[in-house]
């Protein structure tokens, strides 16, 4: 009788694909002694001073709703942090909106701007929820290819090639989960010019900015004509190791912030006050902890990228994020088969690249946010597996 209920389910939800991550998670869940390189979050717990601030907030009885936009003290800290580190100025009174993670920010941004059928350009491979979030907002996703030849950087030429009439929004994630891809300044500048030319709104998810190891992180909103057409998204999950707190934010000109706020206030009301209090502490005193974690990730990156290339699964060196995205085609296997067999034969979990989009075929995502001994052991097992495929 189960199919009976399907008649109640909305067409566009039925049309949503199941997350490839979810499938893989279920496969891993039944197994023992797996070394997982499939975890898209830091292995550090939130720095103690941030946790302590949340405990203090609870002790003081801070258990109520906040303003829909979020605590003004937090919005001031966000405004100052974004100005200092990204070169973008936003008024904390009406241009900063605190959300339940960047995922919510992404959702309300799209829901606030899309009419049914509006097209959204997004890079591929990309974070698993990008395309589904567009679909849930009744938009139509248009993928922009990024590839290993250019280290998965976002290139202006590809953006232009993918553009088609009706593209209202360009949605980018730089640095990118799962590829670690970024965009060079001159490419980003050209992309910005193109966005102005085609009058596109840009939604820029910069959640991995703090995990930049080489080169500068450039925000697309800093180019001429861009501030007024950019929604800047950021949050605490990655840089401050605060995934479970669910705390993010959107910064945008007043009219856009106001529109997102409408969706936010009727669905979420506000982010958890305890998380917001912790966020204030993170921005005021968290720089040192962020730096320490970045340095640890960088050394782990050097280790896995070097080992992958030795093993014979070619891997570009991502200049940001804690993901490596090696090419596994030398094994003669496709992404899903590689990941499944590696899991079954060597108990190492990596996520097939196709979970992140069609251009992820031939790749797997390796999260190196795990301890050295696990990484060393995992690389040895991967080596054994790759050799067995020859």
């Amino acid at each position, binding site marked *: 009788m189960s199919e009976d209920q399907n008649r109640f389910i909305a067409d566009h939800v039925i049309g949503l694909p199941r997350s490839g991550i979810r499938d893989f*998670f279920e496969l891993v869940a039944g197994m023992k002694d797996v070394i*997982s390189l*499939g*975890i*898209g979050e830091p292995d550090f717990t939130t720095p103690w001073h941030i946790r302590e601030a949340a405990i203090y907030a609870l002790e003081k009885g801070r258990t109520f709703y906040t303003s829909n936009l979020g605590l003004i003290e937090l919005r001031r800290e966000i405004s100052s942090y974004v100005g200092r580190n990204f070169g973008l100025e936003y008024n904390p009174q009406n241009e900063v909106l605190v959300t339940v993670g960047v995922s919510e920010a992404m959702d309300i941004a799209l829901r606030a701007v899309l009419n049914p059928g509006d097209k959204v350009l997004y890079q591929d491979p990309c974070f698993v929820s990008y395309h589904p979030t567009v679909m849930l907002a009744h938009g139509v996703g248009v993928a922009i290819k990024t590839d290993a030849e250019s280290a998965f950087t976002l290139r202006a030429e590809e953006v232009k090639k993918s553009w088609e009439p009706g593209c209202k929004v360009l949605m980018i994630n730089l640095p990118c989960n799962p590829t670690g891809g970024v965009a060079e300044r001159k490419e980003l500048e050209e992309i910005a010019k193109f966005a102005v030319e085609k009058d596109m709104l840009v939604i820029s998810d910069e959640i991995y900015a703090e995990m930049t190891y080489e080169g500068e992180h450039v925000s697309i909103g800093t180019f001429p004509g861009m501030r007024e057409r950019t929604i800047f998204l950021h949050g605490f999950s990655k840089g401050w190791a605060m995934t479970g707190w669910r705390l993010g934010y959107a910064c945008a000109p007043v009219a856009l912030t106001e529109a997102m706020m409408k969706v936010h206030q009727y669905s979420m009301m506000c982010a958890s006050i305890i998380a917001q209090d912790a966020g204030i502490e993170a921005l005021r005193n968290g720089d040192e902890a962020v730096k320490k974690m970045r340095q640890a990730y960088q*050394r782990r990156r*050097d280790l896995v990228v070097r080992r992958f290339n030795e093993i014979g699964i070619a891997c570009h060196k991502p200049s940001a994020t804690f993901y490596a995205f090696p090419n596994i085609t030398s094994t003669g296997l496709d992404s899903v088969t590689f990941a499944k067999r590696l899991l079954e034969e060597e108990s190492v979990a990596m996520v097939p690249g196709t979970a992140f989009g069609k251009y992820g075929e031939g790749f797997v995502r390796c999260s190196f946010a795990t301890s050295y*001994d696990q990484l060393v052991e995992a690389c040895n097992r991967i080596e054994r597996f790759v050799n067995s495929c020859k």
Partner: protein
Amino acid sequence: MNEVFKLLAEGERLNDRQMAEILGLSVEEVEAQLAALKEKELLLGWIPVLNPEKDDSLAVRAAIEVKITPERDGGFNRLAQRISRFDEVESCYLMSGGYDLLVVVKGASLHKVASFVSERLSTIEGVLSTATHFMLRAYKEQGYLIEQPAEDKARLDVTP
């Protein structure tokens, strides 16, 4: 600072071979960098961090505030160095504030520490006074938390 140092500073226990593997160096290169750290006296040596709550050889520890007379040549150095040389002295620091040296002393029993202070330390020419504070319980030792519940690092196996 060299790569080996940065890795050591992260605090994981790694042998030379593991460090070589992580850093992409040969074992000889790791050894050379370690030797350079010792040469510069940046790395003083290796000792295990023991739990004072469980290790009987550390049955008694005391922090001793010591006032001493500075000397015309060298100030506090000569006396501080002399005091540091006793095996009983675990660490010794020159302090600002109400006293001059903070001396951490360990011993098998209260009696042994007390006699070290009264017979050896206070009798040194130039030591004006001592105030001994016995440590009652350790909550954190050299960066390690003691007898506190472990963190529940329950990450899911696969997440986006």
